[in-house]
């Protein structure tokens, strides 16, 4: 069982890497600043909502792009929503993937959209894993008395 100091360091290093690698941006810091003793789970709660909502949007996107006649306005609307929510939690790479996606929507380019969807799914998966790891590290530190 790692000591508190080691856990702290691991958490700090991991957090830094997330910012350095562009997974998270300053908005995530803003979220953390809104968390306090009266709302100790705020970040986890918001991020959980983000996970749920993103899953829904990604599945709607897949469906929309499978249609015989693709409704690009609908596709764009879903991507816009995901762009908004990822921006709200500081999920920078997901947000950027959404921005690229919208360009292909504008061009009504199905191939491009499908590629973007795949990319978006990848980025989302990565983000989810990273955040879950982050929360796990935080939990471990808490449990160790840190």
């Amino acid at each position, binding site marked *: 069982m790692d000591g508190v100091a080691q856990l702290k360091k691991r958490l700090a290093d991991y957090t830094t890497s997330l910012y350095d690698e562009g997974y998270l941006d300053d908005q995530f810091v*803003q979220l953390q*600043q809104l968390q306090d003793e009266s709302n100790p789970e705020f970040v986890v709660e918001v991020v959980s909502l983000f996970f749920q*909502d993103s899953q829904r949007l990604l599945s709607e996107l897949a469906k929309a792009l499978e249609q015989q006649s693709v409704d690009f306005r609908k596709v764009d609307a879903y991507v*816009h929503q995901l762009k*908004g929510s990822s921006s709200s939690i500081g999920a920078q790479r997901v947000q950027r993937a959404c921005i690229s996606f919208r360009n292909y929507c504008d061009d009504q380019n199905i191939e491009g959209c499908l590629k973007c969807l795949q990319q978006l799914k990848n980025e989302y998966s990565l983000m989810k894993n990273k955040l879950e790891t982050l929360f796990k590290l935080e939990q471990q530190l808490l449990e160790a008395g840190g």
Partner: protein
Amino acid sequence: MGLSTESQFHVLAVDDSIIDRKLIERLLKTSSYQVTTVDSGSKALEFLGLNEDKHKDTNQLSISPNSHQEVEVNLIITDYCMPGMTGYDLLKKIKESSSLRDIPVVIMSSENVPSRINRCLEEGAEEFFLKPVKLCDVNKLKPHMMKTKYKNNHQNPENQENEEISEEIQPQPQQQQSNNNNKRKAMEDGLSPDRTRPRFAGGLTVASN
């Protein structure tokens, strides 16, 4: 009621995104505001007691009997891009209503479109915030809420001082009706241009300072 001498400002937040509702709620609560969130413009109007079919009666109080009469709203903050009624549509409806038009409205948007911003400001929005909204944005809200300062309407011994210091006379007889918005309208009638002047430099109540 001795709960607090500082009566809270109440903000109605409108956003179709559940994440953004959670965020704005936290931001507002952190700033000690009371918050109600709804996910659409039509629900916002419902909450405000404005029924769609009554909006034509601009001179009458268009408040339905089962509206939230005890709840006063001091500011409305709404997302721009929403399905159905946009934030702009909502803004317009509020400004067209004689009972609601004095409530300050703030628009939020993830997109920085100057023409959109101008349109909203011209229609009477107090501020336009780019998303994601931050604490420093929320800090700009207080002066706007001070304009709808009718927090201390309810007769309360602690508020006697307030009434003395405030130069805006509260029309007592008109308050006998329980309808909150009656007060708002009554206020409008009884008010001088002083309405826009901030009432207090600091906190909401003088008694506590």
